[in-house]
């Protein structure tokens, strides 16, 4: 057996094309970030065809449990050079084309789907752990004996009104404004801006705290930024810290 024979034999074992509900499924040699083989779908008739990825690039993001802002914009940017289109549902597809263009269209759609998936995965942020806010809310309920007011009416700061995650009315003379934050820039910025503005307003009877999820990885500079808005409290020590703040 020659090397050529060995290679030919190995490649012959690659998954072949399949057919399902009138659609032809074509496994390519491209891989998604998960190492899933990129398969494209060919639909059409005798002389005209359309090739698409069945939304698999976007599915890669969701299988990783990640989220990303504006996935469609990222996908369009990643695939523009291949001349393919994208539906609102995230399906990457070719124009209708003839049999002579089919091979190239399969390659282009597969590579467009690959590039889109990589851009989505590279840009994704982890889905927020759902328990942080839930646990913070439970802590506030147990500590203060009543349901904290979530998304209260706005508190007017030095420049504009702001809403906080929780406003605990400790007494007629004291209310506690609390935001829970996770280590992403939108969460951090929103909390810091609101707390800073209210701090500048020097409202009487208002105590401010930012509780951060210390189960997550935080950059030191982000923690410093939080402290500019209000004293920052790690969630693991929030019970004691909030008790002191309310006293």
């Amino acid at each position, binding site marked *: 057996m020659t090397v050529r024979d060995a290679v030919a034999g190995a490649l012959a074992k*690659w*998954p072949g094309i*399949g057919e*399902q*509900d009138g659609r032809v*499924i074509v*496994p390519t040699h491209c*891989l*998604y*970030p*998960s*190492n*899933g*083989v990129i*398969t494209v779908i060919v639909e059409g008739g005798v002389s005209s065809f359309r090739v698409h990825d069945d*939304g*698999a690039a*976007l*599915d*890669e993001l*969701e*299988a*990783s*449990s*990640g989220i990303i802002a504006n*996935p469609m914009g990222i996908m369009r940017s990643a695939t523009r050079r291949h001349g393919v289109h994208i539906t*609102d*549902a*995230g399906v990457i597809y070719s124009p209708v084309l003839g049999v002579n263009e089919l091979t190239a269209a399969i390659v282009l759609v597969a590579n467009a789907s690959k590039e889109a998936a990589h851009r989505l*995965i*590279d840009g*994704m942020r*982890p*889905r*927020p*752990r*759902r*328990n*942080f806010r*839930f*646990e913070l809310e439970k802590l506030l309920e147990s500590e203060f004996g009543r349901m904290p007011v979530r998304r209260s009416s706005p508190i007017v700061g030095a420049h504009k009104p702001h809403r906080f995650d929780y406003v605990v009315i400790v007494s007629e003379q004291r209310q506690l404004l609390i935001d829970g934050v996770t280590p992403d820039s939108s969460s951090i910025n929103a909390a810091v801006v609101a707390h800073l503005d209210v701090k500048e307003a020097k409202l009487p009877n208002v105590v401010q705290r930012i509780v951060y999820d*210390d*189960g997550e*990885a935080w950059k030191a500079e982000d923690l410093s930024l939080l402290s500019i808005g209000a004293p920052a409290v*790690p969630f*693991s020590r929030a019970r004691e810290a909030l008790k002191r703040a309310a006293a």
Partner: protein
Amino acid sequence: MASRPDIRDVVDAFLAKEKTLAGLGAWQRDSHERTYRWVRPVEIDGELPGFDLTVKAYPRNRALKFRIILAYSKAIWRVDYANDSPHINSMNRPDDLDLGPITGPHYHRWEDNRRFATATSLPSSLPNARILAQNLRSFDRVFRWFCGETRITVGSRDMPTLPTPDTLL
């Protein structure tokens, strides 16, 4: 502030413990129209440590297709049940894993992909997978098997029913 624990140890410890599902599951349309998502937080000793169990359904697919994902912000254990999505394993894989291709339903377990995590971050994808056993060819069986592998106790009320195009109309 106390140093954060190694995230790999957090996942190891989580998987080693007996767990239950918290809350109530409901199917919700995913970020694009083809798929639906069912999510339940995972509970240990009355606490929710931040792990979610998600089922993704593809009700418009004629052939059975779904994913089951255990995530700690990112996926750590996953079943990809589909016959049209072959998979290739990484060159960096356990000795007992073939490179592939795997052409049928398969699963990505934490133990095979832990090597791609660091002390502070989980991998964005799970490149190593194993073939799902031939006797696991229905959603109910795979779901119960998955929960068994990950030590999640499943009660009768915890079993999701995969949506069909009709049930979602």
